[in-house]
């Protein structure tokens, strides 16, 4: 079902993107308030009750951001943006570690099919182990070697992020046509030359696709990592706290979830931008 799309300038695309976002926000608000209105009028309670405690009005949710977080304190918005940055820092560190480890494993597996056969099942299996269980143990170990707690959380984030990178690095390193490999052989290239001049550049699009997934995963990893440690200052602990305060101030929880969502989107957006700069520009086929 491919259709020829007209080429758009970057500005037009940004404008179109902005309009889409606006439309979606408006649509969401309409759906939310619409649901509340209709369900209240018909006195339905399934699946979600439409009362203001369970479903605060959208304007109350946004309003909560502009209230002080504590008496005479800074606005909730600032407090939570700081918390988001705190969590993002952990996520980013975990992302870097996971990306490097993932890339390294990918290169190792391509070089040595024995090591691939030996370790790949465990790489895959590692993803079935729920990280949340590892989290307290990572924190204890970190504590023993006097590692700041936030670094332990980063390790948890790294655990979630390395898997897509390994898989895609492997696929990308194997993606060059056989004739490219024959060409390099005709030049009597060393294996390192083949790796860095042909395989790694060919793998970049694949790796960036994985990095976008990893970016999102690392944010989840960081939030979840903060929970068992009870690490103050990040989104995780605030999520727990506002969940407990749900009866008195439900809109704070919703506002926080919104901020957390935006944090994830921001990180992925950053990686997408990097992809655009480093990968697309050269290879871009005319769309």
């Amino acid at each position, binding site marked *: 079902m491919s259709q020829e799309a007209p080429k758009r300038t970057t500005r037009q695309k940004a404008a179109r993107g902005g309009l889409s976002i606006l439309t979606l926000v408006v649509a969401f608000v309409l759906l939310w308030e619409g649901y509340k209105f209709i369900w209240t009028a018909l006195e339905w309670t399934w699946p979600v009750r439409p009362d203001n405690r369970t479903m605060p009005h959208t304007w109350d949710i946004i309003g909560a951001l502009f209230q002080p977080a504590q008496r005479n304190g800074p606005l909730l918005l600032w407090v939570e943006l700081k918390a988001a940055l705190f969590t993002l820092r952990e996520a980013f560190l975990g992302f870097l570690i996971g990306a490097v480890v993932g890339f390294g494993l990918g290169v190792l597996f391509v070089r040595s099919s024995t090591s691939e056969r030996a370790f790949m099942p465990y790489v895959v299996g590692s993803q079935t182990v729920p990280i949340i269980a590892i989290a307290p143990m990572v924190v204890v170990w970190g504590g023993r070697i006097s590692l700041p707690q936030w670094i332990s959380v980063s390790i948890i984030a790294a655990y979630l992020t390395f898997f897509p990178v390994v898989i895609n690095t492997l696929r990308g390193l194997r993606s060059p*046509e056989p004739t490219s490999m*024959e060409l*390099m052989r*005709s030049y009597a290239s060393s294996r390192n*030359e083949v790796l860095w001049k*042909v395989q790694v550049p*060919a793998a970049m699009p694949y790796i960036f696709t994985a990095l976008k997934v990893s970016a999102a995963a690392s944010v989840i990893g960081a939030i979840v990592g903060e929970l068992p440690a009870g690490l103050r200052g990040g989104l995780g602990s605030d999520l727990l706290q506002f969940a407990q305060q749900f009866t008195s101030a439900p809109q704070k929880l919703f506002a926080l979830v919104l901020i957390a969502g935006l944090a994830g989107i921001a990180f992925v957006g950053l990686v997408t931008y990097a992809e655009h700069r480093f990968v697309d520009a050269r290879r871009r086929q*005319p769309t």
Partner: protein
Amino acid sequence: MTWAVEAKGVGKVFGGQAEAVEALRDIDFTLSQGDFVSLIGPSGCGKSTLLRLIGDLSAPTSGELTVNGKSPERARLDRDYGIVFQSATLLDWRTVKKNVELPLEIMGFETAERSSTADEMLELVQLGEFGDHYPWQLSGGMQQRVAIARALAFKPSILLMDEPFGALDEMTRELMQQEVLQLWAEVGTTVVFVTHSIPEAVFLSTRVLVMSPRPGRITDEINIDLSAKRDEETREDARYYELVTEVREALRRGEWND
């Protein structure tokens, strides 16, 4: 004087005992320096395999093969040959010029020399202004010209070409054939050219080696005694048609004898 390529009883068998496939059998021939030789035969006759044996991209399972008087492996390690495939195989993240520089980088040429050599080679294939373009911006024929420039960049004594114009349309093909002949005259390499197009083989070569269906054997050697200067008029020459017919008949004989 050493032969450019010498084959004695060369054979190639793929696969294990149960599923052995004999691709080539008892290949004997010699190529002199400066020859332009075409390998022609039906699909699956092993002509591409033979080319790869010469280039040490695969190894014979029987017989003796020497390239420039050395083993094919030695010749490869000494960078005696350049190769052009049916697909241009350009690296799409490098500019055209950087693609041509690829072998020079690997062979340790200095930056300045790489740059000037690459420019020179692009001029040779008439793509001098396209150095800063990316492969996706070039047509199929142009990409192949870049591939040829790249193959000749380090001045090898042998050029291996595996159906390089197979993916191009007829008119571009004929233009490229002309260009290859001009290049050959200027640079003087030995060319081993694999094709399944009879007119192409006759137009380009000094000799045509005809191969039989699998297992591939050389069934005929035809000297192309057209004049050294070949152009559009050659394609309408009477002798040209005779030779095309001769090759065609040799191919048919090769198939019937199977």
